[in-house]
Each structure stands twice: as C-alpha cells, then as structure tokens.
C-alpha cells in the first residue's frame, strides 16, 4: 500500500526532518507512527500526500511512485487518501453536511446527488442527523473530529492518514475516536495514525513505527 525507500527530507537551514527512512505498510494494515515532538512524524505523513516533497528517496502509494508526480496530478493522489488532523481543519462557514461533502464536491459530485453517501458517513462516525445542518463551532471537539473523520472516509479512500487525531481530545473522546479508526480499518481501509500518546499504543496493540530525530529506530509488531 505504502512503501518508502531511503527517504530524506531536509528543511531550509539544514534541518534534517527525516533521514533515510524506509518502510512498508500493507493493504488493510493499522499502523501507529510514534516518537517525541520533532521526530519527523508529521513530515512523514506530509510526504505521503505530497504536501512536502522528499529530498532523497522514493515513495510508492498503491504501487505508484509519487516522488516525481507532477503538481497537476497531486489532487488525484489526495483523493485516494483521507487525512485527519489534530486541529480538525473544518471550514467554519460550512455546515457539517457541507464539510463532509467537500471531497465529493471537488471530485465533481453535486452534494445533493450523494446525499445518502454523506449521511451514511456521518452516521458511521456517530453524528446525529440533527447536527447535519450545524456549523463546526456549534459542536464539541469530539464531534468536530468525528466530522473530520467522516470527511476523510466519505470518498471511500483506500488509505486514511491521521496526524495526532486525539491531541485535542479528552481521554474518553480519545477512545471513541480511536475505536472509530479501528472500525474503519476492520472494513478494509489501511490506517496510519501518528501519535505520541503511549496509552493509545499500548491499548490498541497495533504495529508501531518509532521515529527519533528523523530516523526510523524501531518497527514493533505485537
């Protein structure tokens, strides 16, 4: 599903965010990426959707080498990947329904034609129909993250990438959100979650990649 070969990313000023990272994530796997702040977790995820380009190495997504993918093709890559952020990244001037419709809208589907699909995604993440017309600011943090997850899964991507998705949530909501990712994974979607929370890692017992100072230092399979 995802393969990295000797990937290095150097930011301006010579900051080495990733150094010679190689890994392989199989289709349908659930993988945690962990490590202290500044270890390169976010950079690694950004490289997978070409929000950043590697300075060295190759990245393959579903067998396609994306390293030198032209800019015009990047949107098509991102449509295959659902992304969830710590700060939800919802559009505050759009309703819950419209936010979830966004990936389908950019793919050219009018939201009224895919109404059922959007409602299904929202129900799957536990959002009640009464909240469909609300704006993100009217929801709790946990609900906002659920909406963000619904947006990530609505286009049925084969890969979900989440960067510290529970960073802003309390322990109860953290479990609910992580359960949701597990449920999505059980349905066959590959899930990669970056987290620095050891409690989550020990509770869910999934394959865990440890990053330190930009290097992959451990690959634990429970």
């Amino acid at each position, binding site marked *: 599903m995802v393969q990295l070969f000797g990937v290095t990313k150097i930011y301006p000023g010579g900051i080495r965010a990733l150094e010679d990272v190689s890994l392989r994530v199989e289709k349908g796997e659930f993988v945690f990426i962990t490590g202290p702040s500044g270890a390169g977790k976010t950079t690694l995820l950004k490289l997978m*959707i070409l*929000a950043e380009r590697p300075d060295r190495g190759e990245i393959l997504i579903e067998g396609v080498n994306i390293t030198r993918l032209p*800019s*015009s093709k990047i*949107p*098509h*890559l*991102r*449509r295959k990947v659902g*992304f969830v952020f710590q700060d939800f*990244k*919802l*559009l505050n*001037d*759009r309703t819950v329904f419209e936010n979830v419709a*966004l*990936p389908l*809208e*950019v*793919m*050219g589907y*009018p939201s009224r034609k895919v109404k059922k699909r959007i409602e299904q995604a929202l129900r799957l993440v536990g959002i009640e129909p009464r909240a469909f017309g609300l704006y993100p600011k009217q929801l709790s943090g946990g609900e906002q993250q659920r909406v963000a997850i619904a*947006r990530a899964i609505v*286009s049925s991507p084969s890969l979900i990438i989440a960067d510290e998705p529970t960073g802003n949530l309390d322990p109860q909501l953290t479990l609910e959100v992580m359960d949701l990712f597990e449920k999505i994974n059980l349905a066959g979607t590959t899930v990669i979650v970056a987290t620095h929370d050891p409690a989550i890692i020990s509770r869910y017992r999934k394959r865990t990649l440890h990053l330190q100072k930009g290097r992959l230092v451990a690959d634990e399979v429970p």
Partner: protein
Amino acid sequence: MKFLRIHKKAFSGPYLFGLAIMALSFSLYGFFLVGLENLQTAVQSWQKGIKLVCYLDPKLTEPQRQMVIDQLSSKLGAKEVRYLSPKEVKEDLMHQMGAFAEGLEVVEESFFPPSVEIAFGSPKSVQELESLAHLASQLNGVQEVLYGGPWLKKAFEVLNFFKKSLWALGVFLVGVSFFISASTLRLVFYQRKEEIEILRLVGATESFIKVPFLLEGVFQGLIGAALAVCIANLSVLYLHENLPPWLSLYLPQAKVLSLKSTAILLGLGMCSGLLGGAIACIGSDSL
C-alpha cells in the same frame, strides 16, 4: 455549475475596499467618456447650425442686392438664404447679447451693414466652410464673410485632444484597477489561506480553487465599472441642470453614456478584474 461558484466569504473588507477604489477610478474614466460624448454632441449641433454671414455693401441698390443674394444662393448650394436689413442685424445682435445689449440701443441702425445669412442642408466640414466663404467673398457687393470656422476648428482640436487623452487615461486606469484588483484579491487569498489549504488536502485541483477567485475579480471589476457608469451618468445629469444658459443652447439635452461607452467601461472593468484575479492566483501558489 458548482465549479463556477463564488466563495461564500467573497464580500470581505479588502474586497469591498478594492471594489470602491475601482469604482472611483472607473468613474474618472466615465466622466471623461461622458464629457467627450456631450462635447461631441455640442460640437455637432453647433456644426449643424453653422451659417455663413455675408455682409453686403450698404450702397447696393435693391436690384443689385437681389442679384447678389441670388448668386450666393445658387453658387453656394444654400438651403436657406435670409436677408437681414441693418435694423434686423441690430435687433439680432441685441437679442444675442441679452443683458449686455443696453449700450447698443444708442447706436444708429445705419452703423450695421445689411447682411445675408446662408444655412446649409447638411453639416459642413471646416475645409468646406473655408472654401464656401472664399467663394462668397469673391462676389461683387460682398464686403466681408464671417463664419464659425476658426472656432469650429478649435472645437475639433479640443475634441481630438480629449479623444487621445481618453486613450491614455484608459490605459492608465486599467493598469491602476488591475493593480488594485490583484492586491485586494491577494489579501482575500491570505484571508482564506486555511480554506485553500483544506481544499488542496481534500484533492481540489488548482482550477477548482482559483476559478472562483478569477470570477470574484471579474465580478469586482464589473460591479466597480457599473457603479462608475451610474456615478458618471448621475453627475452629467446634475451638471446639465446647472449649465449656464449660453451653453444649454448647444446641449439642450444631457447625454448620458452611450451603450457603446457603457459596454467599453464594463468590458474594461471585467478585463482588469480578470487580470487582477489571474495575477493574484499566480502569487497564491506558495500559500
């Protein structure tokens, strides 16, 4: 058609500020355009009514005078020939001078030479008037020929100057509007940085993101130019109400911007907005 959407937050502060500045700069162009059109109308109405005035020798006998009038009528292709006796010349002059004519009352009628006013069926160019005046002055019994030629020539020169200035001003104002549009849309881009980032992350193409901005630029230019058309037209109507009476003779009706000029202004507005939007889009890639 969802693709051709305008952003929900389109009418934000910087956008409206840019729109106001564009409206003002296009209003300036609108003033020039409408001014030129009114000047053109005034000159044309003056040109249409222009007459050749031939002053006759006062010593001419009645048959001699009639012969000169007949010759003038036939040789110059006149539509209308009107003989004015010295008394009529004095009355005409007093009428034209209005309140300033008091001093003329004491002047003897014999001081004014008899004259012939010649009107033409179609408007004559300055050159045509010159040659007709020359022809009339060659006739025996004609002492002097007057016509508005030199003034008409000056009016045409002013008109041409206006036309050239209009081009230069047009180019300048389109440049200014384009710059304003590009700057305000760039600000709008920054305002929506997060929205653009999210759209990119969910797989929106650059055209999906940028076309609305281009449309907003076009819309900004169009609305700015439309406001300018309204401002220019309202101003000309107001100014016409307050024209001095002597100028009202040549401009009996205020002329608002013609359809062609309105289309030019709106077109320029849209083009500068589109260009501004395009420049703002090019600069947005780094966001």
